[in-house]
């Protein structure tokens, strides 16, 4: 059996990749995808430690999480559509009419 810490390292790596994407990409869709990556990093932990601890709650929770991620993307795509209609772009840095 693979030691728990490797799962932690893997999930941390996935989380950081997602975070990196958020910080560097300007396309709203990639922003959403990066968030998906971060959520999945958490799922890795949940599933791995569910096996580690010998109870199923973590695995079940990860199913919930996936459903919620899908819902979030659905709402997100809708909002990005509205963004595109208003700003003719899906670059997240163009929408800066409100600041300070």
């Amino acid at each position, binding site marked *: 059996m693979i030691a728990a810490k490797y799962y932690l390292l893997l999930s941390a790596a996935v989380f950081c990749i997602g*975070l990196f994407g*958020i*910080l560097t990409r300007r396309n709203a869709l990639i922003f959403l995808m990066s968030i998906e990556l971060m959520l999945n990093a958490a799922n890795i932990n949940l599933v791995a430690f569910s096996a580690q601890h010998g109870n199923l709650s973590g695995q079940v929770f990860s199913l919930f999480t996936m459903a919620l991620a899908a819902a979030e993307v659905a709402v997100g795509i809708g909002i990005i559509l509205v963004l595109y209609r208003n700003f003719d772009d899906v670059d*997240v*840095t163009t*929408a*800066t009419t*409100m*600041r*300070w």
Partner: protein
Amino acid sequence: MAGPLEFAPAIAALPFVSFVIALFFGRYMPKKGALAGITATGGSLLLAVWTYFAVMGNGEPHTEHLHTLVSVAEPFSLELGILIDQLSALMLLIVTLISFLVFVFSLGYMNDEGETGLPRYYAGLSLFSFSMLSFVMASNLFMAFMFFELVGLCSYLLIGFWFREDAPPSAAKKAFIVTRFGDYFFLIGVVGILATFGTSAFIGTGGTESFPALAEHALTGSADHVHTFGFDPQTWFTILALLVLGGVMGKSAQFPLHTWLPDAMEGPTPVSALIHAATMVAAGVYLVARMYGFYALSPTALAIIAFVGGFTALFAATMGVVKREIKQVLAYSTISQYGYMMLALGAGGYVAGVFHLTTHAVFKALLFLGAGAVIVAMHHDEDMWKMGGLKNELPVTYYTFLAGSLALAGIIPFSGFWSKDEVLYEALRLGLNDPVFMAAYAMGLIAVFFTGFYTFRMVFLTFHGEPRTNIAESPHQYGWNMKAPLVVLGALAVVVGLINMAPLAKLTGMDLTYLHHWFEHGGELLTVEHYHHLLTEVSGVHHVESSTGLMLGSGALSLGLALAGVAVAHVLYNVPSPEEHTDKLGSIKTVLFNNYYQDEYQVWLAEGLTANVARAANTFDQGVIDGAVNGVSSVSLFAGERVRKVQTGVVTNYAALLTAGLVVLLVAMGLLGGWF
């Protein structure tokens, strides 16, 4: 027994009723709410008189529990209640009397002058009377704080009555903010007192003790139930006393929180008379007297009170010397006189302080109402240099104003003499033992001279000499409703000093110190003897033995200085045309006056002294004190301007900052918790 004390809550409740009436129905009423106010305050006055005699009759303080706001058994509960004792009965009498007269006067000043917005005016005035009376009757510090805030609000509303003009709203704001600054300290003090003693009651009832009594026990032995947060009890009580003093200094316009009061003169003059001279400004001093059992335990707090009081008395008096507007002179004189009261209380002169509070309320209300009458006569021009010679046109105003001025200047036998003399005498007796009090006394003494001078400079410029403008030649006349209050107050200003004629008593051996005896009764922990005991036994503050020679010497000295001030004013200003006269005087005595007498700004003592001192004081006032206030706000705004730039509008930056914040938090927590 359903005696008068059972009706005590009605004293405050009546003005509240008139507040509601004026607010909602005032516009439909013939006098726009004035009659309701007059009826209510008149009723309160009668009840207050009845209460006064009832207190005189039974001697014991009356307490009544009204409502428990928050009962947290641990650590304390907040309550509303009533405490009627000698002090509050006297104060109730003063407040209801002045309120009543001011309402009557307002008929002439506001209604007859055709002002608009009168229901708002009378509602504000009634609400003020309600709050002030409730404050006076409060049985604990928490309740006192609540109504302390409410009177501040009323003051704000009434100063800004003419809100369409430029100056009144900003004056109202200034008054509100400056007093609020002091009140923040007060609030912390209230919380501190509750946290320390578990009660903020002024008087012990039914098994619970008052907080001054608990503090006394803590200092003299058993410190049970008193939580001093690790401080030495004496130190901690001093801190608490000084925190509460913050509110007192704001409300009673003591240096350095006095700056709002002169600006507050933008309000209608009857308001100035009621709120900014006789009652609300007295709230601070009254609070110190109310919890004197607490202040008497802290020699440090007393010394600070006395010193600030003495300094304020002198500082404000010098500024009063150079003002052009009649109400400005009175405003600075008010600050100065409250300085005297603080000086008295700080110097252990409980009776002297309350005595001066009483006489001052009468004569200063009189002077303000007189000034109001003059202002009406002058078609709302307040510049004294445009008046002159009003004596013949306005005889009633003149003689009553003169009585008030003599009282203010402290000329025997007018009321101000007796009380100011006693204040200074108490300070002197303590000063002979302690240099700090001596300094405070000296400042108070010098201020007597300035008081005499500016008071009579005002009288002479306004009423004597030749009229200097057309309006002054034929001033606007006004009716009985303005004259009657003046006459009542004028008579009182002459005689009210007779309630405590200490020097005369000493000289003749007769028993004339009635006020002193008045305060010898009351709850066992609220008498002047008890305060004396605290001062001498617990705080170790000792007066030198009272002697006839000392008393008469002190009285003669202050009277002499006051007369000197009057005399100087007489020489300089009691002439047909003061400007010409000073010019002539200047040309004769070129060395002294250096030909500098072009306008009223340069007063008799050459530019080298008074004018400069006064101007320096004024500059300090407006530059440093106001500057500090403005500085704080501009620093805040600048910081705000910086802070909001963090919000760049670019969501990627937000994500980066969010991540950075999270990382910083993680690293900091990790280092603290030793995770690595």
